[in-house]
């Protein structure tokens, strides 16, 4: 049985990938950070008790900022494949914690590659590095392909740039089977609540059910190429099954603005939104009630904005035979449905007198 080690297993992509790998009959090992509260919600359904026999899902405590810990886990697990999905993954937060972001995102990848090298696993262990469309930043051409030069615009992107090239370098220097997946934005009902897409679907669902009055967003004109995380994790696995290691762009090839996202999510929730004003003064009103339900808060502007990203995944389509399965509208609908369900649960709880958490940013 093949063994996979997934860093960032408690995150959106980690959870989808773990599920996929279990279906593909892998023994799945994951690394989670120690926290004072449970942080395994997304993989709760995959959990296997340590007392069960033939366990195929094992969690290890660890942290990408600790080399000794990573070397020991890789030594214990002897993985056939490592998927490095762990990171400080929030662009805006990286402006506030640039050094931590560099440590976890840039050095983290290097530490894993070094672990492979130190343990002499260069021929055995394949390595997937979660790279990102944020590398293109101030885009040099549209759409972006594997050949488009990078122009990172945030501490997050600069750190990811290091991780990208160090993966390429260890492939060229030491023959490690290392691949970068340059994934464009990928969302899902289990996306972190502070990322703009989930913030929108959750916010509108809660506005609809009366938990919240207004949704505050940053740059409404920002354009992204949004796909479904569940579709994208398949690519991660596929890349490591090829003859030769290569880097691939993964994207849908379709671009929407943040405002488009709000409109479609609004329609799904049952809120018809009318826009007025522009720039920081732009506001979205509920046509039925006339109330302002969406507004711009400049606090969410990035110091350096990435205006528009659009990916060209031709190489992945041709070489890996991959196509995204979920359309943008279907994905938004799925996210809204989940957030409506959660908001309804909260409504039920609060009606029955139980306290409900709001979770402010």
């Amino acid at each position, binding site marked *: 049985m093949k063994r996979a080690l997934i860093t960032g297993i408690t995150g959106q992509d980690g959870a989808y990938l773990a599920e996929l790998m279990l279906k593909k009959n892998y023994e799945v090992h994951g690394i989670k950070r120690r926290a004072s509260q449970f942080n395994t919600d997304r993989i709760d359904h995959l959990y296997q008790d340590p007392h069960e026999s033939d366990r195929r899902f094992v969690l290890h405590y660890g942290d990408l900022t600790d*080399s000794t810990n990573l070397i020991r886990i890789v030594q214990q697990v002897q993985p056939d494949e490592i998927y490095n999905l762990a990171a400080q993954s929030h662009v805006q937060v990286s*402006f506030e914690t*640039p*050094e931590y972001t*560099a*440590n976890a995102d*840039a*050095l983290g990848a*290097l*530490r894993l590659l*070094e672990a492979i090298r130190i343990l002499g696993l260069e021929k055995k262990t394949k390595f997937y590095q979660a790279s990102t469309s944020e590398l293109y930043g101030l885009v*040099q051409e549209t759409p972006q392909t594997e050949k488009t*030069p*990078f122009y*990172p*615009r*945030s*501490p997050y*992107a*600069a*750190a990811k*740039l*290091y991780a990208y*090239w*160090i993966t390429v*370098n260890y492939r*060229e*220097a*030491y023959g490690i089977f290392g691949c970068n997946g340059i994934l464009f934005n990928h969302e899902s009902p289990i996306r972190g609540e502070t990322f703009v897409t989930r913030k929108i679907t959750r916010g509108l669902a809660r506005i609809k059910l009366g938990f919240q009055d207004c949704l505050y967003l940053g740059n409404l004109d920002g354009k992204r190429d949004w796909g479904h995380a569940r579709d994208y994790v398949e690519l991660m696995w596929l890349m490591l099954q090829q003859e030769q290691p290569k880097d691939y762009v993964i994207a849908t090839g379709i671009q929407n603005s943040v405002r488009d996202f709000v409109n479609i999510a609004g329609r799904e929730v049952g809120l018809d939104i009318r826009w007025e004003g522009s720039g920081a003064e732009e506001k979205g009103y509920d046509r039925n009630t006339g109330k302002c339900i969406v507004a711009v808060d400049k606090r969410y502007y*990035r*110091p*350096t904005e990435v205006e528009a990203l659009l990916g060209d995944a031709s190489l992945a389509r041709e070489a890996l035979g991959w196509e995204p399965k979920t359309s943008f509208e279907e994905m938004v609908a799925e996210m809204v449905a989940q957030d409506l369900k959660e908001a309804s649960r909260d409504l039920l709880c609060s009606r029955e007198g139980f306290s409900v958490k709001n979770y402010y940013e």
Partner: protein
Amino acid sequence: MDNMGNGKQKTALILGVSGQDGSYLAKFLLGKGYRVIGASRDAQMSSFSNLKHLRVYDRLEFESVSLNDFRSVLQILNKVQPGEVYNLAGQTSVGLSFDQPVESFESISIGTLNLLEAIRFLNIPIRIYNAGSSECFGNTEGASANEETPFHPRSPYAVAKAAAFWHMANYREAYGLFACSGLLFNHESPLRPERFVTRKIVNAACRIAKGSGEVLELGNIEVERDWGWAPEYIEAMWCMLQQENPEDFVIATGETNKLADFVHEAFDAVHLNWHDHVRTTQTLFRPTDILTVKADPLKAQRKLGWKAQYKMKDVARMMVEEELKGFEN
């Protein structure tokens, strides 16, 4: 542009002052009337032999700074209040970076990040120069690299330099810092330590000329580089910080030569045929090496008025001359 006339003396802080570039820059800035503070990881333990060699050691003030330590960076900037900061510190050997990849990242990328964060935090109008590297370009494959050429770094050193370059660009664009990266191609001088191949060749050629009878072992001598003269490259750093707007510049001679050509010049300068004294060995090859680089330094000429006066042949001969002087003393 000198400081003497305008009443107020300018202050420059040089990080990595004990190295080749730091030492030449210190001498240059002193000549311009600057107050120069030189920083090194442990200023009391450093011998500063380069500064002594250039006879400027006595005219500098020294501070100990660890770029990996934010407090240390913040403290020194606050104390010195420099108008200009030149960051030439950090691990400088491509070969060594394959053995110490983490240290390379920390001293190069995190070091630059700490400096930028400290300047941002203190909110004083400091102009900062950061030593970028032509290694970021990787193999240029026939085309000449200019400021628009995409990076393809091929060593942990180069990857770390690329990350530092983008941090500089990011802090310039996000927070309006006056931050410039110089993408300097190879620049040599008698102050290069012997682990750099040019100095290794020059020293061996001189020893052999004096009858040492040794054989010089080299790695891949087919690699091509653009070699310039360090003492004039540091002038370009200063020029960048005197511009109206902060920008990045490629600094090079624009002339590419094989390492074998450099070997030829160095041995020719001591009247020897290098073929009789040099052997190449596979063990000195790097895990990934850059085969050829070409540089296009036109922007620097156009905007800074800077142009390399010395090419590879001059560099090899001047290094040999200096080394031979050492034998006479």
